[in-house]
């Protein structure tokens, strides 16, 4: 995996640009990652990101939008508003997690 510099952090990324090491992410990276995909990060975005990080730690995989609603309490409609177009993948990218694998 190539190493790159994002917001003065040395991080490992895959070919698409997703961070590959859970522990290399910290919250100070989030605004830069968000901006790179056209999202101006707000506190509400960070609440979703914080849930995804915590959930990944216990589950070992990235929560789907369904799980982010059912367990995290963030309505699907709001997820689409916060992370337009492809919410599941965009949330994962900003959170420094792999793309969700679940179908639903």
């Amino acid at each position, binding site marked *: 995996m190539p190493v790159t510099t994002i917001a003065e952090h040395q991080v490992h990324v895959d070919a698409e*640009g997703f961070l590959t090491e859970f522990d290399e992410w910290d919250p100070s990276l989030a605004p830069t990652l968000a901006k790179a995909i056209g999202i101006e990060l707000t506190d509400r975005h960070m609440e979703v990101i914080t849930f995804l990080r915590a959930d990944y730690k216990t589950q070992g995989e990235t929560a789907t*939008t369904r799980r982010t609603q059912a367990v995290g309490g963030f309505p699907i409609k709001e997820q689409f508003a916060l992370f337009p*177009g*492809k919410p*599941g993948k965009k949330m994962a990218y900003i959170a420094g997690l792999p793309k969700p694998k679940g179908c639903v």
Partner: protein
Amino acid sequence: MSEDFVVPDFGSSEGTGRHLAIICSKGNLDMAYPGLILANAALGEGVQVDLFFTFWGFDMIMRDRADEMAFSPAGNAAMRMGNVRMPQALAPAPGMTGLATRMLKKQIADLGIPTVPDFLEQIVASGGALWACKMSADMFHVTEADLRDDLSGIINAATFIEMTDGAQILFI
């Protein structure tokens, strides 16, 4: 692009320009899910999705039927109990549909997959549109009052074909 690192290409936030039309014509529980799962996946990828419910697919959008959809092993040669193929002679036995339905519902729930009504609610929240077939409504003597609140409308087949001009069409 101003970043000096690789950024995933998520396309436009306005959507991909891709449009998927899914025609749901079956009222068996196991045949409800393929359309729902594909619709949900497409919406999550920024694809515009319209679902058209016709014939037995009406059970998916009827208030008092969606939770009662059932699965029968009859006529399903792939049905197995564990790893053993289930003899078709057993399939029509009394109680078999109820048993198979309970098993399927449990397996679906164990995977965190929503029930049919909840799944449709999620699809609408994700920007998908639900349409009911006018001919089926007339045939079954069904009005909008019998159907989900979040239905976009009862339309004829020609209207659906017109509104899905250029879309990819899936018939289930």
